[in-house]
């Protein structure tokens, strides 16, 4: 009698390609990217989804997702996604952007796509630094944080204060879901997976703009080991950027 086939508890989703990512060892981009791919797979959207990759570490994300992808100019992913969604409303459209892309050069596109209530899902990776270009200060860099361009720590008098994107967008009427999650522990990864799925479900129901902000680490540019970077994230980023649901149009139901 043939032995019973062992059930697989965890394996690579088919919504990801076989390519090895360009992310540094221990970068949480990889986890978030997996969660997005698994969410699409689980909701049965993996074949019809179209993603928009940003400029930044995730610039070649089109190599890693099995679904169709478009690569947008720096910060313009929500504008490209708007066009895609209006032309192909039956497809699920998502953008995958970092903080330099979404909160700096792309802030206008982000805010206007949100206030128009474009029916797209934005996955926003916040690691408080420009990763790909070598660790410069980003709009989300914490006060006092040392980066390549703030070697004495971010001085809020000269460089301004960090932007809390979820809080900012939560005041706009077009936003259906604004939620901040982290992926620093296995339980938080599961919560993040749920939030990302919710974003795609809201888009499927046509509720409007959904943004999931994922607090992430940058071990290379923060100059820490991957595990130490997670501790730094918990100690410094979470108090400034508290995870939670900032807007949910279905919250009252």
């Amino acid at each position: 009698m043939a032995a019973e086939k062992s059930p697989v508890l965890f394996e690579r989703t088919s919504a990801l390609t076989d390519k090895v990512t360009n992310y540094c060892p221990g970068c949480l981009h990889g986890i978030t990217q997996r969660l997005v791919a698994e969410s699409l797979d689980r909701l049965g959207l993996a074949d019809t989804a179209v993603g928009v990759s940003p400029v930044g570490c995730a610039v070649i994300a089109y190599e890693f997702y099995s679904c169709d992808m478009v690569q947008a100019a720096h910060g313009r992913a929500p504008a490209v996604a708007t066009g895609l969604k209006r032309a192909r409303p039956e497809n699920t459209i998502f953008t995958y952007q970092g903080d330099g892309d979404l909160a700096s050069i792309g802030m206008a596109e982000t805010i206007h796509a949100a206030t128009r209530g474009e029916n797209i899902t934005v996955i926003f990776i916040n690691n408080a630094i420009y990763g790909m270009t070598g660790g410069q200060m980003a709009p989300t860099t914490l006060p006092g944080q040392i980066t390549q361009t703030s070697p004495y720590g971010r001085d809020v008098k000269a460089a301004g204060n960090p932007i809390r994107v979820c809080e900012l967008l939560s005041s706009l009427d077009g936003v259906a879901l604004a939620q901040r999650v982290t992926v620093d522990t296995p339980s938080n990864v599961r919560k993040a997976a749920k939030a990302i799925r919710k974003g795609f479900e809201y888009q499927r129901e046509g509720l409007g703009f959904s943004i999931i902000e994922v607090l992430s680490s940058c071990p290379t540019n923060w100059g820490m080991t991957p595990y130490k970077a997670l501790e730094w994230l918990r100690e410094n980023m979470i108090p400034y950027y508290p995870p939670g649901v900032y807007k949910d149009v279905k919250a009252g139901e």
Partner: protein
Amino acid sequence: MAKVTVDIEYCKGCGLCVDFCPEGIMQMDNDVITQKGYHPAHCVDLDKCTLCLNCATMCPDVAIRIER
């Protein structure tokens, strides 16, 4: 018995699976060097694996496959 397979083509040796394994059975394999030049992770004692999936959940490179 559990089966934990690390695909060394994907593993970049970040060690997050080692840090998050509650049983302490994930370790870096210092005898192996991957094509990218990293020491990959491996499971040293499958009998102790509780199938909590922490290693696979925290693996940024989706290199770990777990079977019952």
